[in-house]
């Protein structure tokens, strides 16, 4: 038996902390009454803060492995984890009032959220295919439960079922791909895999066969076309706080899944997966953007918009260069920051008996609240990739990455499809600014939600005007 220190276990301090904390919260929550449920909420936020402290405290400057290579800590992982804590914390902050109003303010939401976060963390730090799979399942299973979390809602149950069945199939596909790769190369460890693939030869048919399954699994977790079917239904059917959750940290996980498996483990096969990802990316951008136009529900619209953004994230990855991964990482972070705000806006406008998830619910928002209309406008223009907001720099980065590897046509396709996308984001701005309000209720949301959402909106602008803050961060961790 090797000791904790020999296994270099301290680099996993944050994971251990989150796991312990969540067990403690689970136990405490059992004994809480409805009135003291806030304690769970506070403890969950404290856990996130503690995890952030642990991650910073045990932050690494270079790649460090632990547990015989099963676990990897690197600067990219640290940054992604910190971002995940942040988005999960913001998600909790945004969700509290909505959950309280709906009688959903239960410990399960926060506990499942923390388990999902743990899954994200495990994926971020995965050093072997097994760890990857462990993280994927930890995340997915919590998400399935979260979607079904409002048991009164038939539509939520339906989408949870759909999510679960399709998700299970995709996990199986991913595992099947892993097993083939393991069979051919004889290793699960990602760094050894990279070496062994070169020995076997990247053109090995069995490897490519396995790779195809892995890509299908990754595409499903991302929600890339043609494996996107679950996205609109789940986004639409799940309670808005859960949609918000699914739209944020899990996207970071999907990104890191692709990076760890494709860019680190199977980097020698870049020629093979590049072609597959090109197809996925183009289809996602095309279908996501075109179908989003037809939506009347903003959650569904944002679901299709997510699909198209996944296409853009894939653009960076498929470049197969460090610049591309960096661009992709930047895009993912920018996307998460913006999306969290957009869903937060739906939560802001919702009130008892009113979901505010139809597009028309945004009508005349400028009359009701010029400040939040301006924030939503910034979020929408940012998602559309219009400067000076953060979304523009994300788009710039991935297009630059694609151009750099000589795929000029792909860059042109991407920017032209982003014009299609502009239309439905503009429509939201149109509803808020050019139409008269149909809803005269004052916005009920409390101070926390308002403050965090305002900060979120301002961040979208500030990181757009001073983009080098986040660009340099990505550059530092992915040199």
């Amino acid at each position, binding site marked *: 038996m090797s000791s904790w220190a020999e296994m270099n276990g301290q680099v996993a301090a944050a994971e251990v902390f989150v796991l312990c904390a969540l067990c403690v919260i689970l136990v405490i929550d059992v004994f809480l009454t409805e009135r003291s449920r806030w304690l769970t909420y506070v403890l969950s936020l404290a856990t996130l803060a503690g995890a952030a402290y642990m991650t910073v405290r045990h932050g690494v400057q270079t790649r460090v492995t632990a547990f015989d290579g099963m676990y990897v800590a690197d600067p990219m992982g640290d940054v992604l984890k910190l971002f995940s804590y942040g988005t999960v914390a913001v998600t909790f902050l945004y969700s509290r009032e909505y959950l309280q109003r709906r009688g959903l303010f239960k410990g399960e939401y926060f506990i499942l959220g923390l388990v999902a976060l743990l899954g994200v963390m495990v994926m971020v730090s995965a050093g072997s295919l097994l760890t990857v799979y462990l993280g994927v399942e930890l995340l997915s299973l919590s998400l399935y439960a979260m979607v079904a979390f409002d048991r009164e809602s038939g539509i939520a149950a339906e989408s949870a079922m759909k999510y679960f069945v399709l998700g299970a199939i995709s996990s199986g596909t991913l595992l099947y791909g892993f097993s083939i790769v393991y069979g051919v190369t004889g290793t699960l460890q990602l760094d050894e895999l990279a070496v062994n693939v070169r020995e076997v030869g990247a053109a090995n048919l069995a490897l490519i066969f396995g790779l195809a399954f892995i890509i299908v699994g990754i595409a499903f977790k991302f929600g890339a076309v043609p494996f996107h079917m679950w996205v609109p239904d789940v986004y639409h059917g799940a309670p808005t706080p859960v949609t918000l959750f699914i739209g944020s940290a899990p996207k970071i996980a999907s990104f890191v899944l692709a990076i760890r498996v494709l860019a680190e483990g199977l980097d020698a096969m870049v020629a093979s997966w590049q072609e597959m990802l090109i197809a996925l990316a183009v289809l996602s951008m095309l279908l996501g953007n075109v179908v989003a136009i037809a939506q009347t529900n903003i959650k569904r619209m944002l679901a299709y918009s997510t699909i198209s953004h996944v296409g853009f994230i894939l653009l960076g990855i498929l470049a197969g260069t460090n610049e591309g991964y960096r661009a992709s990482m930047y895009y993912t972070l920018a996307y998460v920051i913006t999306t969290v705000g957009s869903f937060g806006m739906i939560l802001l406008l919702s009130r008892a008996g009113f979901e505010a998830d139809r597009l028309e619910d945004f009508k005349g928002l400028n009359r009701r609240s*010029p400040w939040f209309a301006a924030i939503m406008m910034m979020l929408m223009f940012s998602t559309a990739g219009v400067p*000076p907001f953060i979304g523009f720099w994300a788009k*710039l980065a991935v*297009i630059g990455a694609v*151009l750099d590897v000589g795929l000029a046509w792909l860059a042109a396709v991407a*920017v*032209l499809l982003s*014009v299609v996308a*502009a239309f439905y984001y503009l429509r939201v701005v*149109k509803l808020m600014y050019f139409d008269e309000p149909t809803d005269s209720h004052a916005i009920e949301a409390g101070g926390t939600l308002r403050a965090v959402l305002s900060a979120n909106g301002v961040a979208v602008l500030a990181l757009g005007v001073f983009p080098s803050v986040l660009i340099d961060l990505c550059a530092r961790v992915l040199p």
Partner: protein
Amino acid sequence: MQDWPILSVLIWLPIFGGVVMLALGERNVALGRWIALLTTAVTFGVSTLLWANFDSSTALMQFGEEHSWIPSLSSAYALGVDGISMPLILLTTFITPLVVIASWTVIEKKPAQYYAAFLILEGLMIGVFAALDALLFYVLWEAMLIPMFIIIGIWGGPRRVYATIKFFLYTFLGSVLMLVSLIYLYQQTCNAGQCSYLIADFYDVPLDLNVQIMIFIAFLAAFAVKVPMWPVHTWLPDAHVEAPTGGSVILAAIMLKMGGYGFLRFSLPITPDAAGTLDWLVISLSLIAVVYIGFVALVQQDMKKLIAYSSIAHMGFVTLGSFLTFELMSVNGDVRGAAMGIEGAMVQMISHGLISGALFFCVGVLYDRMHSREINAYGGVVNTMPIFAAFAVLFALANSGLPATSGFVGEFLVIIASFRADFWYAFLAGLTLILGAAYTLWMVKRVIFGAVANDNVAALTDLNAREFVVLGVLALAVLALGLWPAPLLEVMHKTVENLVQTITTPKL
């Protein structure tokens, strides 16, 4: 020379003013108006220092500022002006306060947001003309669409939503391909060893002809939409008709000029060989704009639409003048002719900015009183509004290129230059003197002259002091530029000569 960042002040002062107005909200509209006026007036005052301290004996960038902005992309916050951008900045700062004055009492819905949008827009537009870094240019170029989108959409006419979305998508579609080109050029500078987004560094990037043609077409898409050139002009009549008066004025007077500016700053110097190869395309499109759109303008029933089409026709001279260079230089090395074409284009831009702005103000004056833009709704306005009629006739004559007005100078220079290139160019371009006069004066005849058409016209009141100031200032500018264009030409002369030199040096 200045030891303080005059260009940054010009960009950020109005934006800051706009943010203050937004923060102030609709609580104190009267104060808001004065803030807006003060901000734009001070901005204009500061911008005159540009003119006063401008050194017209050099083609170098002046009033330069450079700060690191995005080091990892080698993109800098780099500003500067030369003889091409300085007059355009002045035009911007000159027109915007007039817009503020003209909409003093007219805007009832959310006036604070209205002024804020114009102030922010002004800052962004100045930034577009002053940016020396391509990425900074692009950011401002696109960001500018947002306030304009809002202006047309909130304060526009009945079909404003259609018009403003069309406006946004058209221009956005045009510019995204330019973005791809800019990134490509940036990567070429990296391949050459020194990554840079500076526009001036793009001039030195060696590019083979096929690549140049692709980049040229991408630039053409961006700038042709903005100018706008036939056949991508269709957003303009819609946007103009639906926009509030101030929006139309800014659109016609300044935003269209960015297309012309883009040709001079990007297309010609970065892809000179492609521009030389494809100059026939641009020249044909320009001549179609001048002649065909002239005929289209003739049949318009809506005054704003007529002026919008007239803008397209006049902007045809800008693109024509800019692209005559190659033919002039290749035929007989006519540097003077080439410079004349580009200077004509520049004068035409400034002059059209003043005249079309003034004409939109005139329509606005009528519209505020009668709430109709239909030519048929009017007739005999001179009887009730003699002072207004005098201004309207002056601007109409300027629009048709009457000597002693600024409209004459630009068109004349371009026609002379095109004469040196090819008789038929000059012939077709010269048709504008007939067409322009026909559509403008015919409108004036129907609206202004004749007997009082109906009771509404009979009840019109003449210009108030505010409107008089706006139109009077513009009239002075139009006449001054028409009678004595020398200072303007002198300012740009060195820059234009240098530009001709750059674009006729093959890159291949």
